């Protein structure tokens, strides 16, 4: 691991300012993603701003009947909160489907949202990767791409977003609250946070330099059933090959795109009376594989149809 300087933040706006002043700084929250990547030399921050003790670990009721999850709430704490379990079960299920109990005890809401892809070649410094080094090329196009994206990828990057939590946040229409280096607060709809790769796969979110996530706000839950289902290589402690979140009439997909994917075409088809399988097919008409992950298109279609049907029963 490269040497770095370290500071412990005590104020969110000051942390954002400090991060903006040092372009090679990173926020350190739970550390479960950043430290992993630092050990491999993929992340090389020269300065760490430890935000783990910022007073952002509360889960609060909002005036309109929703919930505000502080950015430093752990994945375990959110999944165990009685209000989340009763009113936002899709979020509890998505969190509990991710990582392991030990990791969820450290992983935070903010860190989970902006965790980086688990593309094999992003993790291998010996291989070209446009995300690590813009213009270097993408080793996944011709390589092992079983886990890669089938929706929204580009010729520059075919990586998938690994977050389970973010898929549930998509169907809950969550809003991400931040504070910028100028001290200004901002509210970002979850669908606007992550970017598709296009020709700039190294730019992953709409966050500005130094901008710190302070909370995720859940509006009151939509009417109707909620569900989260994840397909993967083993029953637990494994990243997803595809996942589906459902809440009311909203559907989102995980592990199939660099964005947690809101399936608006399927939603529109369902609203128009389509059968579950037809709705899934409507969404996936635009899906494309890279060879190794072609199977994901059918897998996702079946998983979507199953989750939608279970919600209707």
């Amino acid at each position: 691991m490269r040497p770095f300087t370290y500071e412990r933040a005590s104020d969110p706006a000051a942390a954002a300012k400090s991060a903006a002043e040092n372009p090679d700084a990173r926020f350190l929250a739970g550390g479960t993603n950043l430290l992993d990547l630092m050990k491999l030399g993929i992340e090389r921050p020269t300065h760490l701003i430890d935000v783990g003790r910022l007073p952002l670990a509360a889960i609060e009721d909002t005036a309109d009947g929703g919930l505000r999850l502080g950015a430093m709430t752990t994945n375990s704490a959110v999944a165990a909160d009685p209000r989340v379990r009763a009113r936002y079960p899709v979020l509890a299920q998505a969190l509990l489907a991710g990582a392991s109990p030990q990791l969820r005890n450290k992983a935070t809401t903010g860190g989970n949202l902006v965790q980086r892809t688990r593309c094999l070649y992003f993790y291998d410094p010996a291989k070209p990767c446009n995300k690590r080094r813009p213009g270097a090329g993408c080793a996944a196009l011709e390589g092992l791409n079983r886990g890669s994206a089938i929706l929204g990828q580009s010729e520059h990057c075919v990586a998938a977003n690994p977050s389970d939590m973010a898929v549930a946040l998509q169907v809950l229409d969550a809003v991400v609250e931040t504070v910028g280096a100028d001290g200004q607060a901002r509210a970002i709809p979850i669908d606007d946070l992550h970017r598709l790769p296009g020709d700039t796969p190294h730019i992953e979110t709409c966050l500005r330099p130094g901008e710190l996530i302070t909370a995720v706000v859940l509006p009151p839950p939509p009417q109707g059933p909620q569900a989260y289902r994840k397909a993967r290589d083993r029953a637990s402690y494994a990243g997803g090959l595809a996942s589906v979140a459902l809440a009311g009439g909203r559907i989102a997909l995980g592990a199939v795109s660099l964005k947690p994917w809101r399936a608006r075409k399927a939603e529109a088809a369902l609203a128009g009376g389509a059968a579950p399988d037809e709705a899934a097919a409507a969404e996936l008409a635009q899906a494309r594989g890279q060879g190794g992950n072609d199977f994901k298109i059918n897998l996702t279609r079946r998983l979507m149809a199953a989750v939608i049907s279970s919600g209707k029963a």
Partner: protein
Amino acid sequence: MGQNLLTDAIQRGPVTLVVNGEARTLDLDLRTTLLDALREHFALTGTKKGCDHGQCGACTVLVNGVRINACLSLAVMHDGDEVTTIEGIGRPGALHPLQTAFLDRDAFQCGYCTPGQICSAVGLLAEAAAGAPSQATGDLTAPIVLDDAEIRERMSGNLCRCSAYPQILEAIRDVAQSSGAGAGA
């Protein structure tokens, strides 16, 4: 905005950890993980390094009573925290019920994963007692009953290369049942 002794622009610093009840302050390279601090600086080698990347659970310890992977945490992140390692769970002659159950059930072969398994199981019992759900919990709003499916799921963060899983399950089931958290005989 350094709030404590660790202010700007330092790459080493004093870090205080309360390990198994004893507070010690060490001058550490700030890159030191909690795992390396325990093994190399506190000479507590019960906690094991398997993968060093959060993928195996061999390094599981309890921090302020909560189980985490010591390999994916910096010691400095835990300045002032209480850390419990396998050495603090029980000692020869004064074993923790889980340690006794692991012996009774023969829940290991090489033993490399065992400290992490036992620390993890201590965390599991506390989480279940506090009502925390898992992926195996059918009704998210009902009280937790530690049946076999629940124990397996809640121990999924600890791999065992020798595959002593059936015996590990039996050992934890024994302790869960005697504490009233289990699924009955």
